[in-house]
């Protein structure tokens, strides 16, 4: 009755387009930071081996794959038997494994360890802290509501 029908194809499309969009912006940002003469999402090594067009296509497809992994792995948060901390760690590991494998294929493993991983850790800790503080607030309001109800 309460089970929501999961929209597989919708999630797939949403994950893919979001992944590509974010990937394009991140690669554009990296190009700007590196002051390149022209935009290329691929590393020079990948462009050399696959050519400009194919390397760009591979990059975009794999950005999409990261997006798909991120979207589908959020279902981990629906497992009620796990604590929030376990679910967050599990989600982090799944997403990071995906990103790491993509970085291996696209040839930016070094950047993954220097930038992507540390930034991801900071983001996860921040999100987790926000949820944790929200729960503390929830508990306070629940106990206040309970106290009030019992006094009536």
């Amino acid at each position, binding site marked *: 009755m309460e089970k929501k029908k999961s929209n597989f194809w919708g999630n797939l499309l949403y994950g893919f387009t979001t992944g590509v969009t974010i990937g394009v912006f991140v690669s554009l940002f990296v190009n700007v930071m590196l002051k390149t003469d022209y935009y290329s999402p691929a590393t020079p090594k990948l462009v050399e081996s696959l050519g400009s067009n194919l390397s760009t296509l591979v990059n975009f497809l794999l950005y999409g794959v990261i997006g798909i992994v991120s979207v589908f792995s959020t279902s981990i948060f629906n497992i009620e038997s796990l*604590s929030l*901390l376990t679910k967050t760690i599990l989600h982090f590991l799944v997403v990071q494994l995906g990103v790491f494998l993509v970085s291996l294929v696209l040839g930016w493993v070094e950047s993954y360890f220097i930038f992507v991983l540390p930034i991801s850790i900071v983001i996860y800790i921040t999100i987790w802290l926000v949820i944790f503080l929200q729960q503390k607030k929830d*508990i306070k309001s629940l106990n*206040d509501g309970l106290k009030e109800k019992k006094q009536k």
Partner: protein
Amino acid sequence: MINLQITYDNEMDRETVKIITKEENTLIADLSKFLTEYKHDCLPLYKGTKLFVTPIKDIYLIRTDKNKLCAFTKGEEFSLNYRLYEIEELLLSFGFVKVNSGEIVNINKVTNFDLGEVGTIIINLDNSMVCRASRRRIKSIKKYLGV
């Protein structure tokens, strides 16, 4: 299956249920016990095959356990012949709220809410039982409590 016949009679001054059976059996025994003890605020609970018509206000928690529904009172455990969604609807007006996918809690029997094992909300009940509220259910608990 029981053949159910309802007769409406304006002359009747008190509702009467008449059971016609070939022989006495547990179904008839349960039915007659339930009907004689029936009140709108009671539920038929079982311990083994024995029926207990229990006031709903005495139930603390209803939990699914291996596809079976269990009801917990102050110190006893019973089984129920309902589905979780049926009992959820039935007990809504009695202060019961679904707190996770498998448990319905009588909010009037809650001692307090607590932050349990990192990232979970624990519900402590007056009979020392503990259950966990899922994040998505917090909204409905808050709604019931008016916060």
